[in-house]
């Protein structure tokens, strides 16, 4: 197979030019809240105030660094919604599919509470409980807050968070505060009703269904008011935005500026998921999602002093586990009913202390290797794909990876810039030749793929596609290995052994996840 650029870089140039222009605004939201809110989602304790670090250090969604180590779970107690989005169809459910708004079984607050304890006992690094649907948590306030109440009594060490469309957020700030929910996510796809009317067909507000531009205007006002109120109350807020090419892709820069100035802590720009079989409006109209490089260009442009989240897996409203893995099938209501659950906070703490040690070791290894890059000068930037099961290590086989994490290497070090979901290449011990090209397309913009192990056949195919399969850092720390690799790469370029060439674009995987794990 030849190395192929699936989407030419020139196709995304108009967007890039605009982004270059607007990327100059870098003012960070400091109105209210705890001062400087710029802390890079991959930042460490040195980059933020102690009180903010305390809130995010083991929250996998609010800290990129934490997401390699800590797990989260969602409980699906909130089925109702008060708005309609063109990228959402809550009628559709498939256990093998992962995207927001989708869930296999709804829970009562009591069932949810038992599930949380069961998961917390089985997965001691599970530190965060979120309510994210499958509808809107604040369109189901009684169920949502009852769940928080039950969990805060039985498992007070678990962080509570919720994710909302923001329509009724201003009405619930006091209650959110009373349950010590200190992380709230608002999905804000626009700050201009002209744009919003193409995303939201209607909202239900004050006993009336509003449509079109009026609906978008009300929604936007309520979202921004809610965000300001969160900031004023010292509650960390993440803003999610769905990137919809041709509808709000350019506009999201303006959204970024609007939420930053109102004190949002983190901005998460996600690609539209719109496969026709999902039955969403966008799926049926053929609205495409962005390519990997289009998404990265927009994220890069918004990354002034504002933290950009790039490790979001757009998980289901009942997801369980590390981001990127889903263990919800182990914790169905039927299985939980049969479990004897004993909540042991001491064991959980002991385990989390171990995780903290691992994490420190990883940071130390990175710092050590980074010292070797000091003084190196080069404009070269490379992307690498990494097969990992967590802990910040290269510890997954190529054929067993259901996703690759992507790091950008430069003389500044190794920076996590995203991830790519893929279908499993290896099933039952045999490689699937039909799957390999889709894996290559998903990491086509990467120069190398770091794995714990790889078979001869995919190795040759990757080389033919111009991607270097690297297994010499098996079970080592990702960042240290990546920096070492980059140093060797620069040396080879300097010695004239290789010529640096930039790669093409890559696909963002759409559609149902069908391969069995």
């Amino acid at each position, binding site marked *: 197979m030849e190395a192929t650029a699936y989407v030419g870089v020139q196709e995304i140039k108009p967007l890039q030019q605009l982004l270059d222009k607007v990327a100059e605004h870098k003012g960070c939201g400091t109105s209210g809240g705890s001062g400087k809110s710029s802390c890079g989602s991959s930042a460490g304790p040195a980059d933020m105030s102690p009180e903010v670090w305390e809130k995010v250090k083991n929250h996998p969604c609010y800290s990129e660094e934490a997401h390699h180590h800590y797990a989260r779970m969602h409980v699906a107690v909130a*089925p*109702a*919604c*008060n708005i*309609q989005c063109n990228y959402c169809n*809550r*009628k559709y459910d498939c256990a093998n599919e992962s995207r927001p708004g989708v869930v296999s079984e*709804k829970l009562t607050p009591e069932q949810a509470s038992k599930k949380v304890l069961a998961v917390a006992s089985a997965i001691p690094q599970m530190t965060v409980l979120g309510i994210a649907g*499958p*509808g809107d948590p604040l*369109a*189901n306030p*009684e169920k949502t807050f009852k769940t928080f109440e039950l969990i805060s009594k039985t498992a007070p060490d678990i962080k509570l968070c919720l994710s909302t469309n923001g329509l009724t957020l201003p009405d619930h700030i006091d209650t959110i505060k009373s349950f010590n929910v200190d992380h709230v996510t608002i999905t804000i796809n626009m700050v201009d009703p002209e744009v919003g009317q193409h995303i939201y067909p209607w909202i*239900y507000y004050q*006993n*009336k*269904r509003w449509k079109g531009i009026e609906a978008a205007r009300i929604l936007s006002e309520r979202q921004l008011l809610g965000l300001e109120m969160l900031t004023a109350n010292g509650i960390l807020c993440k803003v999610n935005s769905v990137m919809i090419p041709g509808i709000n892709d350019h506009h999201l820069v303006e959204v970024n500026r609007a939420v930053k100035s109102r004190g949002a802590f983190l901005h998460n720009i996600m690609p539209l998921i719109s496969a026709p079989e999902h039955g969403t409006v966008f799926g049926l109209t053929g609205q495409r999602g962005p390519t990997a490089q289009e998404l990265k260009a927009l994220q890069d442009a918004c990354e002034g002093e504002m933290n950009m989240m790039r490790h979001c897996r757009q998980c289901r409203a009942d997801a369980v586990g590390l981001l990127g893995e889903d263990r919800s099938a182990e914790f169905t209501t039927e299985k939980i009913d049969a479990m004897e659950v004993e909540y042991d906070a001491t064991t959980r703490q002991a385990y989390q202390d171990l995780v903290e040690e691992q994490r420190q070791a990883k940071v130390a290894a990175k710092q050590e290797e980074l010292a070797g890059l000091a003084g190196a000068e080069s404009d070269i930037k490379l992307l690498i794909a990494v097969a990992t099961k967590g802990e910040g290590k290269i510890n997954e086989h190529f054929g067993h990876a259901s996703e690759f994490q992507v790091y950008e290497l430069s003389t500044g070090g190794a920076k996590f810039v995203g991830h790519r979901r893929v279908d499993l290449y290896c099933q039952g011990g045999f490689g699937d030749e039909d799957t390999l090209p889709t894996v290559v397309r998903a990491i086509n913009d990467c120069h190398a793929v770091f794995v714990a192990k790889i078979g001869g056949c995919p190795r040759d195919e990757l080389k033919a596609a111009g991607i270097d399969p690297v297994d010499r850092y098996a079970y080592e720390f990702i960042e240290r290995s990546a920096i070492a690799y980059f140093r060797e790469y620069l040396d080879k370029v300097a010695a004239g052994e290789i010529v640096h060439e930039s790669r093409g674009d890559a696909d963002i995987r759409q559609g149902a996840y069908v391969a069995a794990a």
Partner: protein
Amino acid sequence: MAYTIVADQCTGCCACEPECPNKAISAEKSIFVIDPEKCTECIGHFDEPQCVAVCPIDDTCIIDETWPRQEAVEEISS
């Protein structure tokens, strides 16, 4: 007069249940049903039937043609 929920289309999301001013909506297994004895089509309460306004699936909360429509509509409009 009454509205009814098309069982095949109801997703069981429960959005309508708390919005009904007459408490006419209740869960039946995994979906919701409207008690026609209690339903007033929201006349006198709101400008539009609340179940219709909030339901995420079009044409799922519809007028129950088998139930005699009351004169309230005419009374209010006259």
